[in-house]
């Protein structure tokens, strides 16, 4: 009987072994290997036990045979079940690996200067301003003379001008207003040094009231460095009408800068521009440190943001407005300056390198 007992324990050991391993068989191949190990005709361990049956006495053979058969059946059933389970778990033929990277369509990025420009345009559109572009090449009258800078005026030195080798026809403006008599620069002799030239074109063409914003490129004979480029972008603003005051100018800047930078304070400092009187530099309380002083505002708590003033009566006279009947304010803002402050850009040249890794940050 001891033999039987030992064989019985062999069967139990085989069952244990099989049960432990069938659960871990995660592929059809593994299941087959496992099944073969136990049931293969030649070398299966259960098959081996069957082959020993003939050597046993009939009683033991019957009893032991039944046990071996039961094991064989259990294994066969388990293998079938495992095969079915694996088949059920297998992904369908058209399944995809959803974790692979998606197919992308390249989407480009708007230039940061244009983002700021659009934002400022929108702010002023909502305040009822007309937004228009002007020619980049100008004549002396519109760029200087009518702006109270006659030939030889010292203030011309403040804006080192680039002159054209020969006069050309400049771009048009104001098409949406219908036929504009002064719509084209007939003989441009210089690259405009400021968008202020459009003040003159507009006022010479349309009577007051005026409420315009002129964004665009301007040119100076400046070398490239951290804060200068020979071409940069500006916004010109002009409001003219009866009873327009310097208080209005303050309110307008407060609204614009708050829309751009959040709740900031503004401060006006007297300055000098030939085409405004009084003239003022406008400072904004530093949006990074809230006026406490930091590296961006050079510890002053204030950031110089734009130049402005009340339109000089000589300018009104040059365009045929009556300086006793109307007043107005004008201002110029550098778009680069706004973008540098807004996005924390420390080198203005980055805007003109067009490195896609720089541009990709803006959307």
């Amino acid at each position: 009987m001891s033999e039987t007992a030992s064989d019985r324990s062999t069967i139990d050991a085989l069952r244990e072994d099989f049960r432990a391993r069938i659960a871990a068989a995660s592929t059809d191949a593994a299941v087959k290997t496992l099944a073969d190990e136990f049931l293969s005709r030649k070398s299966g361990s259960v098959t081996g036990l069957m082959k020993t049956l003939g050597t046993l006495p009939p009683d033991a053979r019957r009893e032991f045979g039944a046990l071996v058969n039961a094991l064989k059946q259990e294994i066969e059933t388990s293998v079938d079940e495992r095969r079915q389970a694996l088949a059920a778990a297998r992904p369908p033929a058209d399944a995809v690996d959803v974790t692979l990277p998606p197919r992308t369509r390249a989407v480009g990025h708007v230039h940061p200067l244009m983002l700021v420009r659009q934002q400022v345009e929108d702010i002023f559109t909502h305040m009822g301003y007309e937004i228009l572009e002007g020619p980049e090449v100008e004549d002396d009258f519109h760029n200087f003379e009518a702006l109270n800078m006659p030939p030889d005026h010292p203030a011309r030195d403040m804006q080192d001008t680039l002159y054209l080798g020969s006069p050309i026809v400049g771009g048009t403006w104001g098409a949406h207003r219908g036929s504009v008599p002064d719509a084209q620069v007939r003989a441009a002799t210089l690259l405009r040094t400021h968008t202020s030239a459009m003040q003159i074109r507009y006022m010479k063409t349309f009577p007051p009231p005026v409420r315009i914003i002129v964004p665009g490129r301007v040119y100076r004979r400046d070398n490239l460095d951290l804060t200068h480029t020979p071409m940069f972008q500006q916004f010109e603003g002009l409001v003219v009408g009866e009873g327009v005051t310097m208080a209005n100018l303050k309110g307008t800047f407060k609204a614009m800068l708050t829309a751009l930078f959040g709740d900031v304070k503004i401060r006006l400092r007297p300055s000098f521009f030939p085409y405004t009187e009084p003239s003022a530099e406008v400072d904004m309380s530093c949006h990074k440190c809230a006026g406490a002083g930091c590296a961006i505002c050079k510890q002053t708590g204030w950031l110089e943001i734009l130049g402005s003033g009340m339109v000089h009566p000589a300018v009104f006279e040059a365009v045929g407005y009556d300086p006793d009947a109307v007043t107005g304010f004008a201002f110029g803002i550098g778009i680069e300056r706004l973008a540098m402050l807004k996005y924390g850009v420390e080198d203005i040249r980055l805007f003109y390198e067009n490195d896609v890794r720089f541009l990709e940050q803006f959307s």
Partner: protein
Amino acid sequence: MKVLLSWLRDFVDVPGRPEEIAATMSVRGFAVEGIEHLADGDAVIDFEVTGNRPDCMSVSGMAREVATAFGLQVRRPAVSTSIRRANAAGENGPALHLASLKTVERGDIEIVIESPELCPRYAGAVAEVTIGPSPEWMQSRLRAAGVRPTSNLVDITNYVLLELGQPMHAFDHATIAGGQIRVRTARPGETLKTLDGRQRTLSPDMLVIADAEHAVAVAGVMGGADSEVTAETKTIVLESAHFNALSVRRTSKALGLKTEASMRFERGTDPRLPVTAMERACALLEMIGAGTARGTVVDRYPVRVEPNVLKLRRERITGLLGVSIPDGDVRRVLEALGFALRDADAGWDVTVPTRRVDVTREVDLIEEVARHCGFDRIPTTFPALTVPPPPLDPRIARTRQLRALATGQGFSEAVTFGFTSAPAAEAFAASEAIVPIKNPLSEAFAVLRPSLLPGLVESAGRNIRRGQRDVQLFEVGNRFTRQDGESQAIAFIWTGAGRTPHWSERTRDVDFFDAASFVSTLADTFDAAARLQPLATPPTYLVAGQAAEIIAGGKSANGGAASTVRVGHVGRLTPNVGELLGLPAEVAGYVGEVDIESLAQFRRTALKATAPPRFPAIDRDISILVDDTTPAQAVRDTVRTLALPQLVSLREFDRYAGKGIPEGKVSLSLRLTFRAADRTLTDAEVQSAMDDVLSALETKHGAAQR
């Protein structure tokens, strides 16, 4: 203007630390560029003086502003009969003494003003001098103000310049021929060796100081070397004059010579100052032991400058500033600045001191009031909207639309300069079309850009050299040529992948049809149809065989002949043009540029919608064999010429050459779509149309159906 605090305090007893003074003045129109603390506790405040305020380019001028800001009195220099030599400690050194000088018609020097309009006033005095160094107190004050001390005499003229704002000059009396000073314009071809050692040729519009024989100084700009005061000089002629600002400015510009004197004269000096300055200089001569004045001054003042009187209206102050300023404040500020006020109707008559060359109108007075009353007193209000706001300029609207379109197509926006180098421009336009800049900053910015492409190619090249491979950039901007002037364009460059690489498919580099696709989308945005016309001789920057003109026309529903216009070019960039602009030659770049105004003319102003077709369309595909040189456009045109009423579209969907196709031939597969608006077409109708198509293609192109 560097102002030494102790020097400022000679004129006004301003209390407080330099930082406090700086803060106060910086909100009154004098930005402070820096404060330097000196070892002896003194300080130098560097005020930025705007170009309209020459009267503040001096210690006494700044003192007047400081006194007004702090509500203090200014001390003025006064004639003293007991000028003592300053002791070593500097006591009495800088004291505001003036020498007592007797004004004479003709003294030890004769002065003749030949051009009184260019020189309204000229004062001269003679003094015996001993040339040597000036005392330490004077030297240290000059150094603090940024002026290098030289000799006692030159130091005195610089000291007066810095203190009072009056430029002065000293001549060696021995060199002045005939003892005569003649203020006249230069003679044609007249030359003068200036103090900087350069021989200058003068022109007849320049004012000079001359002796009886020749020019000894360029008036208001620089003295002559031959009349310079030297260590041996015993007697000097001191000059203190008033010159016409514009004349000095023109002369200084023409000679390329900027000096402390010219900078003040060209902005405008005070015509009342020359004699006072002379008195101060003579007092200083004695105070520092540099010499003795002879006690007379020859003061020629042929054109008297009278002070302006301006009206100042109370309501105008309020009207401009948006806040009313009490009369008392108006008077206090203006009087402190040296204006004289007399009550008048609705305001005041204000007499403007002659030094205030910037105050010529009522608004200038209002600025003075606002400046010193403080801009912070002005409230914050909004301008009233009195007319309805006009619509957005369509130029701006369409730029925004283009920007959205281009970024949607994978292009990032670039902004490049409006100028470029001549070689770069010449790759994109005929040299006679290019507009040069007269005074360029450098070779790199020598001409206006005739195209946006040079800047874009440069930008793409920079990206590629920095390790980027797939670059898609566009720009909307203006370009300039002699014949077309200024015009707005959109341009693009595309390098690297033609579509975003993905693991599931083979990477494909950008080709002509990617570029063409963007062009067609652009045209579509403006309701235009773009046709690409092959260019047998393309512009220099495009590769032959991959270059096309973009011909745009209106999209007409009925197929009628709309007029067409050339709006731009598209194609593959020539490698050597790319290389010229920093794009490596092995990189294939596809570029295009479209004139926006030309394309925008096709935009429909009013959009009229139609309902979608009610009856089904029928497609017919055919494959034909044609010569491989036959452009697809020619085949398309042949079909179009038939004007089949029910043909709604025609599109090539395959083009094949190679195995099974005879040499020199190509198989072109076309899909024709037919539809009628009022019924479902029958097979017979479509077949009849197809027969016409095939027969036309056979006649025109020898096409055989496959």
